[in-house]
């Protein structure tokens, strides 16, 4: 869109070409031509459209994402209720996408909207709509006012001692708008640790976001939180589901790109998970979407070394909620298994272990380094036991996992896609080719964390089958043992 800049009542005001009485085309420029975007003074007598403000609440949207006529949107801008800024701006000399924070993934095109031959646009966030040199970004400038119904935390469970300690730290951070890293071992019950803090935040009418890099985690958390806070209007945001903002949202980190300066409480679950750990624009989105004065709480079982070094305070839950120690992986050398697979054979030790587990009635979850290996191993494995495979590009993934969960499928082969968030009672877990680069310390700790989660079957078998021990394998085992020792010392084991 093209805008002209005018002085109205000593204020600089941007007027879109479509709504302007001015005829001179030389007055109009793509919005990125302008350098500052002052907020207009609020006109209290202006009759606002609450539905429009609701759509924009806490958001940072393109014109195509706002289902209201431009003249209405512009009227709210003139009266101080909506802020506009250029989607692409120069920041410290670098062209920057203000929505996703990217500074490098730009391309250009000859634009029919603004008439510029070299209109730039951001490729980094293009799947969420196109931010170009002539795209304004709109946000509501008046803070969220919600009348919450009286609510009660409906969760009646008990916290373990480790959970209680973390829960107090979370509540404190939320009250004081501070940062906190909750380092909780797999199966320690980290979601429950949030409940009292969330209750505190809601009682102060704070806006809350629980964000995670993964859609499946959003889908898993939503019903649990809905159950705990049934009277709260909760929304789940993930690819394809875009809803109006509520006071409490559970969102993928991707969707936060559409938010700005909104949340009082930002909780990031699985903070070390792909792609949040490698995609700086997701980290930008988290920073942009929360208020300057807000709490930031990270949850993970496997924080990175940098995070452990740089982040304070950290609260640790070394024990599982059921009070049994974490299963320790055993490392088993299987020789050159890749060569065996080329010859269409599987290492006998592996087969022996699997058939034994299946014979004992335990579901077996096997992790492999790559999709191509999974495709080779599945038919070989099927000669011995009934098995199927899942990976990131598998459309039938959800169904297969359900069948595995329901004991309709004894063995499931997986890429690292299932390393987090899957809970199968009594499962035995193994990695084939644990020496591969994809199996980092944290991946191995997460995989081992699949076993023994249920209190009825607290000791599961975990095997790392390998062709040469790696540092990652050794330190994963050391970390797990260390957590068990700490839990023991604190008296948190049964």
């Amino acid at each position: 869109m093209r805008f002209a800049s005018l002085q109205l009542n000593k204020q600089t005001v941007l007027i879109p070409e479509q709504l302007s009485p001015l005829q001179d085309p030389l007055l109009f420029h793509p919005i990125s031509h302008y350098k500052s975007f002052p907020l207009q003074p609020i006109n209290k007598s202006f009759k606002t459209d609450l539905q429009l403000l609701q759509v924009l609440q806490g958001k940072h949207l393109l014109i195509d994402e706002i289902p209201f006529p431009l003249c209405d949107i512009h009227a709210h801008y003139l009266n101080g209720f909506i802020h506009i800024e250029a989607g692409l701006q120069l920041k410290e000399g670098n062209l920057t996408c203000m929505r996703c924070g990217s500074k490098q993934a730009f391309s250009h095109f000859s634009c029919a909207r603004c008439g510029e031959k070299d209109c730039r646009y951001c490729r980094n966030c293009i799947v969420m709509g196109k931010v170009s040199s002539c795209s304004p970004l709109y946000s509501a400038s008046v803070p969220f006012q919600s009348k919450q119904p009286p609510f009660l935390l409906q969760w009646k469970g008990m916290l373990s001692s480790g959970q209680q300690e973390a829960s107090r730290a979370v509540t404190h951070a939320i009250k004081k708008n501070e940062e906190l890293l909750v380092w909780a071992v797999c199966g320690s019950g980290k979601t429950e640790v949030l409940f009292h803090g969330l209750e505190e935040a809601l009682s102060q009418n704070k806006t809350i976001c629980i964000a995670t890099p993964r859609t499946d985690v959003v889908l898993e958390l939503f019903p649990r939180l809905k159950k705990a806070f049934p009277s709260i209007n909760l929304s789940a945001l993930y690819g394809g589901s875009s809803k109006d903002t509520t006071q409490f949202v559970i969102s993928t980190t991707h969707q936060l790109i559409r938010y700005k300066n909104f949340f009082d409480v930002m909780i990031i679950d699985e903070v070390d998970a792909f792609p949040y750990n490698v995609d700086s624009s997701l980290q930008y989105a988290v920073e942009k979407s929360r208020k300057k004065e807000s709490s930031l709480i990270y949850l993970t079982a496997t924080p990175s070394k940098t995070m452990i070094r740089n982040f304070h305070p950290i609260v640790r839950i070394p024990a599982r909620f059921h009070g049994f120690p974490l299963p320790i992986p055993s490392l088993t050398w299987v020789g050159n298994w890749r060569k065996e697979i080329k010859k269409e054979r599987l290492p006998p030790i592996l087969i022996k272990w699997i058939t034994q587990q299946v014979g004992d009635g335990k579901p077996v979850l096997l992790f492999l380094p790559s999709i191509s290996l999974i495709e080779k191993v599945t038919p070989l494995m099927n000669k011995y036991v009934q098995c199927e495979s899942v990976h990131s590009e598998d459309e039938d993934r959800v169904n297969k996992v359900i069948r595995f969960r329901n004991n309709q499928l004894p063995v499931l082969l997986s890429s690292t896609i299932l390393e987090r968030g899957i809970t199968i009672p009594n499962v035995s877990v193994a990695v084939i080719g644990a020496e591969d680069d994809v199996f980092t310390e944290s991946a191995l700790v997460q995989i081992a964390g699949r076993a023994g989660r249920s209190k009825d079957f607290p000791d599961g078998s975990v095997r790392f089958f390998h062709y040469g021990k790696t540092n990652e394998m050794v330190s994963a085992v050391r970390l797990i043992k260390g957590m068990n020792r700490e839990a023991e010392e604190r008296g948190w084991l049964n």
Partner: protein
Amino acid sequence: MAQLERCVWCKKDLSRQLSWRIILGLAAQRVICETCQAKLVPITGELCLKCGRPLSKLKPDYIQDHYCSDCIKWRNSEFGNVLESNKSFYEYNDFLKDILSLYKFRGDVEAGRVFSAIFKKEILKSFGDVDGVIPIPSSEERLYDRGFNQCEVWIEGTEFHEGQILYRINHEEKQSKKSREKRINRKKDMFQLHPKVTIEGKTFLLIDDLYTTGTTLHYAAKTLKNAGASHVSSLTLCRS
């Protein structure tokens, strides 16, 4: 920090795929990776002499003397031979559909610009002597919505990229949302000529993204022929 060269489509790192031909300067630097390249299926084999579709994919009943039955229908209609012939580069498979959707609907011009090279090469090779290359125009409304014309991008920077000759008359429902019946049997003209251009005796090449029934191209060709053009053929990215 040095920028990684990434595949324009899947964003995979390309540096591992530097072939000797690229290092020795015999081939251009890749913009898409080998995996993506392999998903594009070029149209080959025996083709319909008019529309360029592979005859091997048709039942024998639908082939007559090296022409497909659709083209024979066009020839016997009021359109006759307004469109001399068509060539399409690729089969319209799911992969190309996704790329085109990223390009046209998301507006990622860079993703579509990948095809400029093949268009430019083919125009130089087989159509160097035409008087004009015409990307099928979008309606004004569509042009504003998308911000660009997907076919025009492909000939940007060539000598053929010049003033507009054809205009789309009115914006109706999208072609892709109509039934085949409706698409072939439309009555009104889709295009009109720019009032100030004369094209008497000139030859033209039309550019479009997809040849499905050929309706759009036949209408455009008819408008040009009625205005005196001597020769109209077409080149499209894909053929469904």
